[in-house]
């Protein structure tokens, strides 16, 4: 009798914030762009720095590094443009990153109940265990505190 092990592999983009690496699902990544001018205007959403203008579209900038590693990105700021779900609608959001990004394929380990809300799962890469980020919990929006459980419904690991 043979045992067939089927493992669901997914593509992720690794990004570096300070000394730590994090992952985002590659299917949500739009592009990585060079430093751009940030436009600021009065608002009460303190987690947002402002907006950038990219190919005629206005994209909000959210620096998640302070929340994840305790310090803001100040040098070598590139922007990783990714999509975030607002209900059923997808919108682009720009995350300041160091520019040191990498595309990998890895096996996702689902999050557990004890994980922080911003953790959508885990992956192992080069001896490190890396958090897969749940942007719906990490970035502001009407559903910012929504449980990330729903986002994991498509992640299947079968053995």
């Amino acid at each position, binding site marked *: 009798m043979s045992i067939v092990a089927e493992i669901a592999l997914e593509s992720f983009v690794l990004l570096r914030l300070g000394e730590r690496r994090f992952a985002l699902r590659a299917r949500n990544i739009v592009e990585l762009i060079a430093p751009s001018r940030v436009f600021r*205007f009065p*608002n009460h*959403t303190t987690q947002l720095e402002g907006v950038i*203008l990219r190919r005629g579209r*206005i994209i*909000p900038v959210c620096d998640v590094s302070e929340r994840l590693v305790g310090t803001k990105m100040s040098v070598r700021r590139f922007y990783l443009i990714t999509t975030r779900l607002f209900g059923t609608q997808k919108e682009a959001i720009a995350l300041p990153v160091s520019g040191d990004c990498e595309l990998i394929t890895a096996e996702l380990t689902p999050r557990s109940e004890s994980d922080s809300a911003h953790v959508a799962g885990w992956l192992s890469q080069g001896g490190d265990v890396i958090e897969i980020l749940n942007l719906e919990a990490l970035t502001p929006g*009407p559903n*910012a505190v929504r449980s990330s459980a729903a986002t994991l419904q498509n992640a299947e690991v079968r053995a």
Partner: protein
Amino acid sequence: MRPGPVSKARAPRAEQIILFRIGGQLFAISSASVQEVRSVDSLTGTTQEIPQSTVRKVRHTIRRGDTTHYVVNGTIHFGVQAAAASLIFFLRHTPTALLVDGIEKMTSMTYLQALPQAFCHEEREWYRGLTALDQTVVPVVRPEGFLSVEELTLLDRTLQAELEKEQQDSARTVDSE
């Protein structure tokens, strides 16, 4: 042979806007939303103070015809650096008169992007959306966003109370005479 249909490139619909500053910040408003622009100096003597205003950004009213306009301090509303206002916009369809630093220019916009949903606080009431002009992003204000229904109700009640107090005072004066 029939001539083919004449193809017309549809020109994007343009909207006339006024670019203005409050506390040094650039904003845009549809020209159609502004009934009149007046110099603050020209209003001397026509404003009435609200001594017990319950809405911090409104300290005065201006009576124009049958309508009382609440004068909104834009710097307090947006939480920007205080600046001396030189102009006042009387807005249409709302009893709001807005103090502004000055007008930058009048222009037109052909594109208005909805405010990204990541902006999830009061600014959703303040702005119709964002537009890009000359490689700059400018928020386009919503005229009705300067005073909420609750704020208008509070101000109306305050004015009503002031009026009743005045009437009682004058009645007392007549009685004593």
